[in-house]
């Protein structure tokens, strides 16, 4: 693997230089406790200390609400992508974020491939950023705390400088283009990295043993925990919206006032909502809140494992931070496993 180094100052120049390749997006502070990915006006806005944004990077690939097709009564259906060639460079993805994209890649491939998703995927450059976990991170338990691919460049923040991993041919091109900004790391630099890495490994406080979790879930379908959870959950859907790997959506059509043409949209949905399983005639398959909350956990930790061999949760902790009623995924699952 190709490893380089760049100082903090030069890194800022690098990002400014990258603006000629597309819109550069970075993590910014939004409120006292929250961050968002947003377009960079100046590199001074970068919140290097950030751990999780409110919305994950999925927002760049499946927009909260996006147009799928337009139609007219005269000429039928057609695809109408806004800005199909827009290039975006996102800086600041932590390993869990990069892994979340790899999980979404799975969901949007398969027998039918989602061209909207992959068009944006193709047009997006991914720059990773190393991190130091807080008490809500459990990516280590989910096996998403490190990455060896899935990014173009990866920056390990080591104080005065970043250690840079090159993860793709495109990343390599950028290094060549800005070769005067990057340098070869010294052995001491690698030592600093190893030290930081060890510190990070010791810093994970939250743990979830997922080795036989799907099996436990299978036999604990009727656990009292789900009912308790059902009573507490507002079914507000926040957890799904902020989850990097929740990708459900609704489809609906609009019609123009002239009555001759219209558009078809998709919009994020959540399995926590009652109408999620509503079919004509009014039957709802998951009537109880408990069944719905349970479904979210089962799809992530059970269904996805059976389908793809790994859970779809990345341990990012967003649903823990943003649940208004403080439902804590790890505490819940530990409780189900009898380890409260």
């Amino acid at each position, binding site marked *: 693997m190709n490893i380089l180094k760049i100082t903090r100052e030069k890194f800022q120049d690098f990002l400014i230089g990258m603006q000629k390749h597309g819109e550069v997006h970075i993590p910014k502070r*939004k409120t006292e*406790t929250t961050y968002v990915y947003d377009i960079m006006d100046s590199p001074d806005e970068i919140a290097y200390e950030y751990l999780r944004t409110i919305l994950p990077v999925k927002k760049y690939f499946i927009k909260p609400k996006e147009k799928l097709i337009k139609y007219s009564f005269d000429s039928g259906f057609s695809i109408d992508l806004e800005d199909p060639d827009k290039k975006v460079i996102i800086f600041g993805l932590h390993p869990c974020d990069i892994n979340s994209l790899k999980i979404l890649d799975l969901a949007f491939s398969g027998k039918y491939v989602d061209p909207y998703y992959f068009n944006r995927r193709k047009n997006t450059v991914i720059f990773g950023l190393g991190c130091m976990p807080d008490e809500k991170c459990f990516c280590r338990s989910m096996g998403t705390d490190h990455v060896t691919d899935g990014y173009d460049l990866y920056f390990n923040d080591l104080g005065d400088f970043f250690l840079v991993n090159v993860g793709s041919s495109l990343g390599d091109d950028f290094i060549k283009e800005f070769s005067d900004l990057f340098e070869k790391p010294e052995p001491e630099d690698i030592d600093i990295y190893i030290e930081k890495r060890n510190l990070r490994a010791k810093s994970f406080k939250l743990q979830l043993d997922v080795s036989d979790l799907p099996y436990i879930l299978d036999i604990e379908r009727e656990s009292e925990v789900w009912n308790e959870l059902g009573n507490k959950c*507002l079914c507000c859907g926040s957890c799904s919206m902020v989850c990097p790997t929740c990708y459900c959506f609704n489809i609906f059509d609009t019609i123009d006032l002239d*009555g001759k043409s219209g558009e078809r949209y998709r919009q*994020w949905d959540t399995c926590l909502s009652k109408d999620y399983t509503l079919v004509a005639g009014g039957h709802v398959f998951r009537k109880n809140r408990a069944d719905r909350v349970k479904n979210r956990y089962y799809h992530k930790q059970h269904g996805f494992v059976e389908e793809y061999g790994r859970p779809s949760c990345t341990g990012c902790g967003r649903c823990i931070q943003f649940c*208004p*009623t403080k439902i804590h995924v790890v505490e819940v699952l530990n409780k189900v496993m009898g380890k409260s």
Partner: protein
Amino acid sequence: MNKPKVGIYGLTSCAGDQLVILNCEDELLKIASKLDIIDWVMAQSKNDETTPLDVALVEGVVAQQRDIDLLKKVRNRAKLVIAIGTCACFGGVAAMKNQIPREVMKAEVYGDNIDFIDSVKAQPIGSFIKVDYRLPGCPIEKDQLIQMISSLCLGDLPEILNIPVCMECKMRENACLVVEKGVVCCGSLTVAGCNARCPSHNVPCSGCHGPIEETHYDANVLMFKQAGLTRKDIEQKMSMFSTPAWMQEKLMEEIKDESK
């Protein structure tokens, strides 16, 4: 369907939803060409008060006998009756203190011994007639209104996504006010449609669009109590306005249950 014949009516209200129709400045002339608006007291002085209607849009709450009479007349005339605005759909602000007898209110406001003021307990129009469709909002949202009119011209009515304000709030990437500031926000009880207007302005939702079909008062009460708010606070804040008709009753039940 050719041009539907439409009547637009206001019962007791602030006229806000009718004003929203007039506020569609860019679309108004087109709307006028798509709909045959034959009866609309607020916007035109020559009105047809007898021809059968394809669609009647009714705004406002029933607060007097005159409203009931008008409503029944409209129902008889119209194939479709659509409630526009939270007052017509759910009772709105005016229904906030329905537990106080109207007699007492009258006396408070007009003084004793006044008997000519015709006033009944404020109720949504669904308490009196069959309502075919509800477009909530205090006032209604322009884009939803235009979508409804477009659909009506085709002979349809649009689907209203039954999701809470919270979802739109997160889709706009707002920090949750409950999490961040510990305030009472009615987002999870309220049907989306406003694009989470208030939380996007750092103001908690007070439920002006009315309830989602499935309101989880129990979980909300539990949550706010855990956040250290007293029962009285929760009750007061959650029945703040517009939602009282639906909220207060169920909420009181919940709070009563809690005390067991």
